[in-house]
């Protein structure tokens, strides 16, 4: 299980363990994890996001799985709470997702 999961750590220190496939939806994370060279991210398989809060990071992980589901054919709606939207947008912009 360890091999194909990554850990995303929010600003408050919460750790989200998700599939690598899901994390790769984000171009930024994909580049971090697949870049040639010795980086902490590639070594440990975990990425820290000190500027992304927990609720936002949780929503992002939810989006990753929703996106995989969408690609496999099951097209549902991804609901976003309006209060989160602005921050979520900025995080999404940063993560290229």
């Amino acid at each position: 299980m360890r091999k194909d999961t990554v850990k995303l750590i929010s600003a408050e220190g919460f750790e989200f363990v998700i599939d690598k496939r899901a994390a790769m939806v984000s171009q930024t994370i994909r580049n971090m994890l697949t870049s040639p060279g010795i980086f902490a991210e590639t070594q440990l398989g975990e990425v820290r996001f000190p500027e992304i809060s927990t609720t936002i990071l949780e929503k992002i992980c939810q989006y990753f799985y929703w996106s995989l589901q969408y690609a496999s054919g099951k097209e549902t709606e991804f609901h976003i709470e309006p209060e989160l939207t602005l921050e979520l947008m900025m995080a999404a912009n940063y993560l290229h997702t």
Partner: protein
Amino acid sequence: MRALRSRVIPSSSAETPIKKSEQSTEIDTAAPASDGVEVVGTPSQSSVPAPDSGAPRSASVMPQPRRSLRLASAASRRGGGASAEGLPLPLKSCPWKGVGSGEGASPCEGEKVEAFTLGRRGGMSDRQNIGKRKLEDDASLIDSKGSKSLRSRKSVTKRAAHSDAENLVNAFDIEENQWIMLSKITDLDGGDTENREKGSCNDEVGSFRSRKILRREDKGKDKIGDNEVIGLGAESSGSKPGGIGDQPKYGAEEIGKAKIVCDNMLSDCSSVIDLDMEINNLRQKSESIGQEFLNVAVAQRKSHRVKAVGESSSSDIIRRNFRNIARRSASRFAHFNPDDEGGNNSQVKAERNASAAPRPADPEPEDWPGPFSTAMKIIRDRGTNVSTLQSNSFFNKWKSPIIWAPRRDRHTQAKRLIPSLLELCLNVLAANANAITSLDGVPDMPRHKLSQLLCDSRKMNKHFFDLLVGGSPTEIRVKDSSWLTEEELSESFKRCDTRNIMVLQLDQCGRCLPDYAISSISCSASCFPALSTISITGACRLTDDGLATLISSAPSLRSINISQCSLLTASSIVTLANKVGSLLRELYIDDCQSIDAMLILPALKRLENLQVLSVAGISSVSDDFVVEFVAQLGHNLRELVLSDCTNLTDASIKTIAEVCPGLLALNLVNLTKLTDSAVGYLANGCQALEKLILCRNTFSDEGIAAFLEASGELLQELSLNNVKKVSTDTAISLAKKSRKLQSLDLSWCRNMTDEAFGLIVDSCSCLKELKVFGCTQITDTFLNGHSNAEVKIVGLKMAPLLEHCRVLIPDNPLKY
């Protein structure tokens, strides 16, 4: 002669025998010419060259009703009835035939009779072919041809050719009433046999025909029937400098089409030539005999035509033409390579080139024959090769020779349709824009996207505008400020810290930006110290004074867009030049009706670092303006927008190409006076072009294709909207060369087939957007069969509208 003919035959694959026959037909026709049928050109081959020299002569002489003979170039190609060339034509037609003509030519010189005799023998098959081809010719001819085939050596092949020729002819039928099938000529060829069948005297007839032909050549001594084979067609089409020149052009142009030879050479010359030109445009692939001259052909055809006309008046000309034909054909025979049609052609071309002024065969960029002409040659060769490989009917030729099969599996479709989180968030935000309290910390790009979304959905209001303007923004972009009033504007800007603003875009600001409102924005001089890019399009109440105030408050201005500001006059430009002359990099003055192009020229010349100039829609822009402006500032110019400046001609493009080597983007929308020469200049001169926008221009398919071959490698954005003649040649060149293409607009290009689209989309892997408005010919074969997952096809029914209207938000304040 026979031997000669046989030599010729091998050249064309299937056509060989036909060719032979054609050639012979040509000769034959020359002789018999009894029906006055001027077999002008074999349909398949580029009969043009041959008939050119001969035809006019005979044609002119005949007083009979003008019936232009159609040079079935296609037929010739097939090796079919090309022979119809007719008396004088056979010789001429030889070149295009690729083989035959030479043969014919040689004897022409002094042995007309002999040639005719030959023609008779060999022409049988040709005649048969031609017979099929001819439009109006009596069925009897055709019948006779059929019977001829029995007798002719290549009967079977000929038959096939016949049908082809026929098709060819039929195709052209519609075009020219006057065009007479070459078939008649074939009849002539078959003088002995066919005539016999027809009931005419046998050899006598043949000889009679030949006599007639001769006479015809001598200028219409004898009109043989209604149909006079007038090599004119050939001549007209390919009138190149000098008699020889004519031939090749004709050949190239005539490929695949029947040439109509006009009886009345003088009068018909022009018409034929015109027709030729049109046909050339239609013709996609033609055996390129005179390919390299095609570029010039269009421009110079008229001159040639005149020449032809002048020449036709004497038998000397005829003899000279025959001599030329012989000369031309001789080389062809000498180096005939049955497998390499193109090589053959190039050889012939080389020969022709020798006689004509430029030598396009050389690939190195020269003055006139540069990469463009080389490319044109390649395209013609390509067409020739294709056509020779096909021994199908003429219409097949018109179908795409592109080999592209749609893929069966379509798994890759769904992937790219997943909405990104950013998109989803923006949509939610746009829906709830009034609930947003602050845009602090939001980077510029999401701000711009949000602003664009709101403007597009007409939800933009003061609240959001305050958010945009509040704080210390670096970029403010509002693409539609028509909702904004003067009071709102002044109020919002009061709270704005303008120190860091680098980009200010208030488009469609007519309502809110009169002169006195400028003071509300620019509270003091130099209150926009960092402003580098400003766009206030549509400021219809702004005058020169207001603009001057604005400019004085932005000392580091580098890009200004004052399009559609109808009150601004030339003095604004002078102010610009005075205040920020050496800094200004981009100037957009689209549709500023009060600005006179010639008046602003001195001021423009002072903008030394100008990289982008857009003068779309200003009618006073003329060739003089462009030439003078470009001479001064062309070396720095990266983008030039000249759309709707309808007075411009090829001369401007020539100068631009010469002086602007670094030109990256060019917009020539609606410049209908431009011809293929303009494309040629661009191909040779502006090889770094990344963006080319054409719309409603009258360029030919070969011209665009040759441009792409020569300079199309760096193209990222190409628009051929309403360039109607674009077809398979362009598609092939696009697929081959334009690998970096990201956006392609082929709206209203109805000659593009599914296969062509498929080839383009599958080959241009970077292609993201393909616009196909008005392309009703596209079917699901392409839509479901192409294998490019990234491309978005816009413009067909049942597709989302206005997708194409989304404007990209620029990354940087300046374009280059």
